[in-house]
């Protein structure tokens, strides 16, 4: 197998088109529906002073983090410039999360400058409670929630969700948890938490059909720096779906590398050959028929 030569530096045009694709936000119907429903539910929870939550489950690369960002943006939008908006807390969990770690993350999200000199759970929880009482945040958004349930950690997951449950009840704080389908195990681990966070939304990968076609049309419109008419051809639609399995992150990755290939040409039109080279760079070099964009002969 011969590995083609790749320039060490990407040209400014290539970087510009890559940036354009990376920043592209396509609001497809399911995504928009979940976003609006989450915002509406949170507002209702705040009005009713009811402790409840929302679980968002999606495969990696389907836009969970983006969804939380959009919810946050929506909830912190001020109708009146002089109005002081209540904050929205955002916490991103990492591996082996436990009650100490979530309390520490919540502390930092609430704006404490540092952790206590000896960070024990009692003092951190007390500080979190005091800050929530003082600031009255609208909602707690938790990204990467699947880390609570990953591995053989049922007891820890129960403890973490119990800690959350107490905060939800005590302060009427709505919680939105987003994670991969692994997080669904929480339904078996802590029924009390799930009874409060009973709304569950699932973002599935795109099936090949009208939705996929509409998505590709929107992507084509969003990429203005190169001519990406190829994306709308039936062959390309089918091939891209087969390669990316309807996953947005994979699609973006492939398109970024393919666009870089054609960005420097005098007439920047996306071709099948660009997609082939883009596939190589995005998913590793594959020789011959292993690369679906490979052209025989």
């Amino acid at each position, binding site marked *: 197998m011969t590995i083609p030569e790749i320039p060490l530096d990407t040209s400014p045009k290539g970087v510009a088109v890559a940036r354009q694709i990376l920043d592209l936000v396509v609001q497809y119907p399911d995504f928009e529906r979940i976003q609006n429903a989450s915002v509406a539910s949170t507002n209702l929870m705040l009005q009713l002073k009811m402790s409840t939550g929302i679980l968002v489950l999606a495969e990696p690369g389907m836009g969970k983090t983006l969804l939380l960002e959009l919810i946050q943006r929506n909830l912190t939008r001020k109708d009146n410039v002089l109005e002081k908006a209540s904050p929205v807390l955002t916490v991103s969990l990492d591996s082996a999360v436990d009650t100490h770690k979530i309390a520490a993350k919540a502390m*930092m999200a609430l*704006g*404490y*400058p*540092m952790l*206590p000199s*000896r960070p024990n759970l009692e003092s951190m929880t007390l500080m979190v409670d005091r800050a929530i009482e003082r600031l009255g945040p609208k909602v707690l958004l938790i990204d990467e929630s699947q880390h609570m349930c990953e591995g053989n950690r049922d007891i820890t997951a129960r403890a973490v969700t119990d800690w959350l449950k107490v905060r939800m009840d005590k302060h009427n704080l709505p919680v939105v948890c987003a994670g991969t389908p692994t997080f669904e195990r929480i339904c078996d681990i802590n029924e009390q938490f799930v009874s409060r966070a009973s709304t569950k939304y699932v973002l599935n990968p795109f099936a090949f059909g009208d939705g996929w076609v509409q998505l590709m049309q929107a992507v084509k419109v969003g990429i203005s720096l190169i001519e990406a008419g190829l994306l709308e051809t039936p062959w390309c639609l089918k091939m891209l779906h087969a390669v990316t399995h309807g996953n947005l992150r994979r699609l973006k990755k492939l398109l970024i590398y393919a666009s870089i290939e054609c960005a420097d040409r005098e007439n920047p039109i996306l071709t099948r050959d660009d997609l082939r080279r883009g596939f190589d760079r995005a998913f590793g070099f594959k020789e011959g028929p292993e690369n679906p964009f490979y052209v025989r002969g």
Partner: protein
Amino acid sequence: MEFGHLHSFGSTSGFLHASPPAFSDESPNSWIQRVCAAHQYSLSRLKFILDLTPSFTDFDADLTQGEWERILYLTHAPPDTCASGRASLSAQCEGLSKHSLLIAQRSAPKYRWCTLCLEADVLPYLRWRWRLTQVTLCEVHFAPLSEICGCCGGVVSLSAALMVATGPRHAVPSLSICQHCGMFLMGPPVDQVEHFQEAIRPGRVWGVVKFLMNEPGECIAGSGRNRSPRAFYLAGSTFETGSADPMGHVRKKKAWSKAIPRYKVSERQKLAYALRLVRKELRTVEAIETMPTVGQ
């Protein structure tokens, strides 16, 4: 009050949300101690957050107006926090050496206290007047202010966050507890110690309590003069030989009964703890006596 430079503030940013409100006659140092306790920050950590130099010690007199306003902003405190104390202390220190007006020990703020005021406080705190050299009487009770702990002879010196456990030093639960011996500052005066000493003698063989511990069962910290931790254990406690004791020291294979007390403990400290036990005992007896009988 707006601070645009907040995000580059002391290499960190954020707010001290858990800060308690100050009492009207509270000294700034005392309030800062309670702010530290509410956040479990050591004094050096708080100074780092507030962008103060590590050598800074005195919040009563050394803060500029700008620095004080920043503290109020970060703690969400109202502008009149400790206003009387700050105004009076800075007015008195103006143009004069503050060391001649305010009591200090090795540049750390030092306080006298009124035992009756501390006894009456639900949340004990130090008044700014107790810092003044000339003030030796309590303005509320007209009682003489104490300067040394009745049990161990230690002073109240705010060189560290007393209610935060850092390093080998253990935390005191409130400002009415002596930082050296862990006894209440409103304990018996020094001239009555002998009387208590007599009373305590049989106490050395009281039940299983032969050694000194603080109330949660932890080891009492070393005094300010001797920073090495000193451990006391209940004689009835059993620890496996070779395992780590509560202080983290791995024990040698030795019979506990012979090894106790493991660390050198002064007679004075033993007495201090014993006095505390007596006080506790007396309070319990008093409480039982005053308890209404069912059916009366």
